């Protein structure tokens, strides 16, 4: 901690992917979401934490690792497939080194990719034996990283009226967290920052001390928040703390006008060798259906408005990332100084971002975070980085305010997940929740096949509740898959429900479904009772 700091910066990275795992296929496109995030985001972040540890850089950062993401990280099939994926990439990068021999600028990039992929394999396989959870846990145990949880399957609370189903999302998540990280979670990232009054009561029951809302969740709270979003508030009754998102720091990264990731020298996301190179050459690295896909090898920079893109230069991009980190830090210092005068107390600036956007989409994002944390450590004394738990320990006295229902989605409420493209899912999701509660009430001491069927019904409900499906339907990217997943889980639940009531459980089919939708192996359906 700095001696005379005037305020705090709480960086929050929300790491999440929906549970995508398809043993029934040899190769499955959407699993690439996870593999790409491992290579481009999670492993670079771990390496950054490791470097900080080696060099004695003090840093405090909060990161959610959602139960579905933790489950994928711990899954042997996905671990094996990730290695297969990496090996293919290393092979492709090796060929690219040869192919670009007469084009030095590209050659240098091919070497960089080859090195990065090889390095990722080394970290993943040799250092962590294919399971990255202990890597994150290590930095949590050292007191630099605070890992928080999220609804079991990223269920969106404002559209989940059944309180027992909402409770199950939280309780399962907290138990799952404890199993993988060795203690109870202190904080939670509510999926999409989606809060509705009452959720805090469930958090309290799970022993969770704080959550986040978007800016207006606090500003429109009741009564008026004395410190705006620059101090947390306690929810009345539950005394769970709510931290509001700071808009200024969020805008600096994401604004279309001044946002950092749009810099012309940063890597262009869309120009990928998967689309650019000769089909016969690239085909062995595509999926069996032969569609061109993003491979992760990208040679161009954003460049500007021109159609012609210029070749990416990593050294210049790195300098840009350093500049942007310096600019961000400078603005936080000014912001904190201004607010400290206004509030008469040390303000906390809460800056949450989707983790996967650093690295996967904004390729230089991890560099930017690293520069930022380094600079904060070495170059200034105005701000301290802090996690919400640490803040609450130091500043336990806060105002009591009931936050307003809100999310960080488009227009700030539920519209993204409830509109023409996806509203058809709710009649199903809601009755499934009601029926799961009904089953848990009716069968209190199930065992054998019935127990298995009841637990599987709970898994199907949870998987259907992932807010990702509604989100994807709305955004129009990979929609077919979101439809398929939603329908599969609705259909499987419906069959399980009817089979259970009729005492006609088909063990063979149940076994197949258990194998496919294997999330939360220790689930106990009684959580719905």
């Amino acid at each position, binding site marked *: 901690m700095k001696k005379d700091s005037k305020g705090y910066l709480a960086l929050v990275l929300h790491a999440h992917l929906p549970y995508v795992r398809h043993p029934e296929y040899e190769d499955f496109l959407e699993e690439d979401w996870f593999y790409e995030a491992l290579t481009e985001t999670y492993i670079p972040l771990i390496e950054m934490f490791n470097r900080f540890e080696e060099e004695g850089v003090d840093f405090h950062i909060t990161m959610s690792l959602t139960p579905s993401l933790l489950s994928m990280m711990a899954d042997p099939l996905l671990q094996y497939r990730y290695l297969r994926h990496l090996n293919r990439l290393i092979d492709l990068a090796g060929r690219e080194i040869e192919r670009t021999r007469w084009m030095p600028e590209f050659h240098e990039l091919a070497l960089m990719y080859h090195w990065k992929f090889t390095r990722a394999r080394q970290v993943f396989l040799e250092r962590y034996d294919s399971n990255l959870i202990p890597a994150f846990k290590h930095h949590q145990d050292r007191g630099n990283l605070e890992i928080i949880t999220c609804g079991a399957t990223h269920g969106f609370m404002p559209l989940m009226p059944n309180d027992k189903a909402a409770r199950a999302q939280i309780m399962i998540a907290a138990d799952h967290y404890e199993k993988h990280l060795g203690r109870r979670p202190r904080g939670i990232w509510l999926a999409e920052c989606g809060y509705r009054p009452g959720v805090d009561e469930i958090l309290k029951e799970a022993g969770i001390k704080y959550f986040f809302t978007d800016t207006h969740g606090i500003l429109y709270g009741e009564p008026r928040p004395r410190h705006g979003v620059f101090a947390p508030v306690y929810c009345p009754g539950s005394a769970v703390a709510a931290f509001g998102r700071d808009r200024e720091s969020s805008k600096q990264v994401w604004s279309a006008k001044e946002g950092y990731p749009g810099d012309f020298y940063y890597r262009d996301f869309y120009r990928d060798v998967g689309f650019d190179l000769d089909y016969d050459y690239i085909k062995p690295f595509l999926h069996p259906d032969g569609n061109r896909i993003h491979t992760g090898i990208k040679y161009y920079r954003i460049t500007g408005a021109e159609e012609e893109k210029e070749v990416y230069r990593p050294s210049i991009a790195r300098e840009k990332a350093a500049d942007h980190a310096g600019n961000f830090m400078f603005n936080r210092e000014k912001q904190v100084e201004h607010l400290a005068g206004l509030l008469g107390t040390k303000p906390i600036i809460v800056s949450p971002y989707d983790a996967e956007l650093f690295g996967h989409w904004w390729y230089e994002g991890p560099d930017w975070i690293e520069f930022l944390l380094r600079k904060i450590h070495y170059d200034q004394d105005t701000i301290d980085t802090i996690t919400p738990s640490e803040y609450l320990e130091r500043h336990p006295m806060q105002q009591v305010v009931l936050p307003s229902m809100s999310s960080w989605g488009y227009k700030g409420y539920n519209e993204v997940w409830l509109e023409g493209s996806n509203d058809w899912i709710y009649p199903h999701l809601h009755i499934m929740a009601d029926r799961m509660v009904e089953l848990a009430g009716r069968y209190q001491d199930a065992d054998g096949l019935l127990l298995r069927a009841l637990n599987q019904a709970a898994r199907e409900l949870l998987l259907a509740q992932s807010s990702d499906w509604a989100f994807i339907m709305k955004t129009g990217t990979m*929609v077919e898959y979101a439809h398929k997943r939603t329908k599969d889980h609705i259909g499987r639940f419906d069959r399980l429900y009817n089979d259970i009531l009729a005492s006609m459980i088909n063990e063979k089919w149940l076994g197949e479904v258990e194998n496919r939708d294997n999330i939360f192996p220790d689930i106990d359906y009684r959580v719905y009772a």
Partner: protein
Amino acid sequence: MKKSELRKMTKKDLLALAKKKRIAVSESMLKADIIDTVFGGLSKSTGKTRTKARTKVKAKAKTKARTKTKVKAKTRAKTKAKVKKKAEVKAETKAKQAPAPKTGWDNGRTIRQKAVAGKYELTAGPITMPPVESMEIPADYGVTRIVAMAKDPAWLFTYWEITAERFMQLEKKFKDDWTKCTMALRIYDRAAKDHFDMNISYEARAWYVGVTPGGRYQVAIGVITPGGKFVKIAESAIIETPRDRMSDRIDEQWVMPDDVYDRIFAASGGYEVVAGGGSAEMRKMLEARLEEQLSSEGVSSFGSGELMPEQKERGFRLRVATELILYGATEPDAKVTIQGKLVKLRRDGTFTARFALPDGTIDIPVTAVSGDRVEERTIDTDVKKKSSEKAPVIR
């Protein structure tokens, strides 16, 4: 109604009008505030509700048609074709990448919107995985119920199911009057102790209803008899719509001067200090700014061209690249180098190398040394490449 007309009314009349139009105002508000609220409420209320509701009915009617298997197959094929078309267009747009001048992003979308879409971006082609198991989902559940949820401060979403048995009961009850009955939603405003009805068609399964922020609502579905009586079939739980502005309540223990509060609020809404000025007015301005930010910064409207049209440009493109494939054969135990770099031989002694070919002349010596190191052979290839682009012809 114009704002100037509202200004001419007395506060009492304004309150009455607001009540009639179901716009939430309170007596403690200043007249100017009431005018603004009523004006805002009028411009977005009924007309919008209707259009929105209508499109909704259409959509839902379609969904229903889908349950007939024949229609279903057709619809599916259609959707697939549509998806395919969309994917093609998208591939083009992506490759084209025509961003706005200054930052390299089209102005319509924020970076976060594009970025979050990027999280799920994998391919531009249609996905053709054969289903291992395809599940049928129930069209309905045999439960008469109605559920309501807040979509945002101003809109409720409600859906319902009424079983065939329930309809039969009603038909029996009303006898000849049944055909003269109309279906309706009754929306109870539990805060204002008021309600209003909306007629709906029998085919409708869901509806969006315009309401006021920070309210408590309950929705019932039923029929209106020829005599005008509402007969309830099902009723939702009471739900709350979120507030879209600051709370009026001030915490006694945390009292502070209004202008200090406004400056904190301003900082929270975007770190812009607004000095002086009438408190209520400034707050309204800040609220409007926050609302504007909320509606522009979200993560929803990307990917789909209908929502945020890409810049209109011709989608035509041409890109040409040259690669050189060099292949040959020697004895399997020989060592082969291309430009001095060792090449891996296949088991039969053949080899292939592939290079991206830039403009200019390249000298490519290929050398093989026999396994016993006694003999060495070299073949030299000079390759010259020159490409040029002609000015485009627009017809």
